[in-house]
């Protein structure tokens, strides 16, 4: 490959940030594909954007406030109904502290 935008090590690091994990073969494949995609992004370097304000929403609304009133909420047992693990009205997760 002529240019490398991202190395296998970086792919592994980004995977950790994204809470994903890949086998060796997948890292190889993703590195190649991400490189192709990132090289394509180089196109943006051609555009002069000095002084251009970034747009993150095409239709920008200012703060959308609502009245500070208590509305109807889901009961706890309904909120927990889809959880893979739950006990005593809480979400249950694997051990966090040794």
């Amino acid at each position, binding site marked *: 490959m002529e240019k490398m935008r991202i190395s296998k090590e970086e792919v592994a690091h980004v995977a950790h940030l994204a*809470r*994903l994990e890949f086998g060796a073969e997948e890292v190889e494949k993703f590195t190649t594909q*991400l490189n192709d995609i990132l090289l394509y992004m180089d*196109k943006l370097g051609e555009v002069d954007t000095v002084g251009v304000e970034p747009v993150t929403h095409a239709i920008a*609304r200012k703060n*959308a406030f609502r009245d500070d009133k208590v509305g109807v909420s889901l009961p706890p047992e309904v909120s927990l109904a889809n959880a893979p693990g739950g006990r005593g009205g809480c979400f249950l*997760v694997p051990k966090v502290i040794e």
Partner: protein
Amino acid sequence: MELYGLTIHELQDRLRAGETTSAEITASVFGRIDAVEKEVRSYITLMRETAMIEAQAADVKIRKGDIGILTGIPIALKDLLCTKGVLTTCGSRILQNFIPPYDATVVEKLREAGAVFTGKTNMDEFAMGSSTETSFFGVTRNPWDLERIPGGSSGGSAAAVAADECIASIGSDTGGSIRQPAALCGVVGMKPTYGRVSRFGLIAFASSLDQIGPFTKDVEDCAIMMNVLAGYDPKESTSVPEDVPDYRQFLNKGIGGWTVGIPKEYFIDGIDPEVEAAVRRAIRVVEEAGAKCIEISLPHTEYCLAVYYIVAPAEACSNLARYDGVKYGFRSEEGRDLMEMYKKTRAAGFGAEVKRRIMIGTYALSSGYYDAYYKKASQVRALIKRDFDEAFTRCDVILTPTTPTPAFKVGERTDDPMQMYLSDIFTISTNLAGVPGISVPCGFTTAGLPVGVQFLAGHFQEGRLIQFASAYEKQAHIEQRRPKL
């Protein structure tokens, strides 16, 4: 013509006249599903039992003369709209068992309008794809040629309308996911202005680009569906409190004296010659209808794809952080501690395309790369939006091809992400600029595949699009072919 082959407005005429019932229409649609679904595979979940109950309830109302906008009409929903008590998967293993405790706002609105829900349609996983091949639940086929893809990501919703497995359907469009499959399946599909339709209860992909819209068999049905979907929702703070007109008033009004912009950047090398010919014919049709076509320029068009594939993955990687095996959905049982559980759950729960986009987004937002990718893309996005603002000072609507090619074969582009991304090259700019767009059938290739033409207008000008599309449809006399299934 069987009942399942009719439009919303044709069925409503018959319901009002007492010539048929919703129970008959719904049974006809499910009979059609039984006949063709094995081949087309538009649906992930069918809602047959509740549909029959809803149809009977609609018939009671109709007999009392209480007829709403969609009373008794069978409608399909893309499987990323939350439906209370009904499995909602987003095409993903990670949500394979998710049963929402509430309805999306559009689902509530459709229910209030009297719709009968046929089921939840197949889609690319998390709406990331252009072919409906990335679904965990299998590939949907194009009703016009079962070897080919229906487009995506709302491929199930488009195929269901084309194959008469529902009367109309709902999709979502982040970079073309309504308009592209509408074009490839030969139906009408509209992406409204960003903020026109509430996204509450829509499982998010890219929050600044996602918008919900309808698939229909003709433009009049599109106007009817928009009358139900559009409007401000206090539960969705990016929905816009603008007045919603009755979209039916824009039908059959003509377009004499309108100016139509033809962007030169949309007729490029690589566009299929038969697609180009069909769209050039559409240009002549709107001229015959009394509009004047002028060449315009959207100079930043060639950068849209690069901007989109930074902005959409960046938003997606944060939206998809919520799938952690804790609150809902799939959890891997292999992890020994919390971090391992997260990683194993997400590694096994997401498919390859979703992971690819999470990786691009995470990389583009990570320390040291943010300015080069996300900030730069957001600046170029400002220029793309400015292109449209300037274009609409010169013309009333813009006319382009919806897609560069007709439907491609299943498997043809799955190993080449860049090639797949190029299928959305004419639809992506619309989402970046937030403007509304509609794809309308404009003919067939010699192999019998449908081709779509896209019309775009300024923010909140859906009425103008319906007026234009309605005039085009009337003038074009597109052959009334149906897929042979």
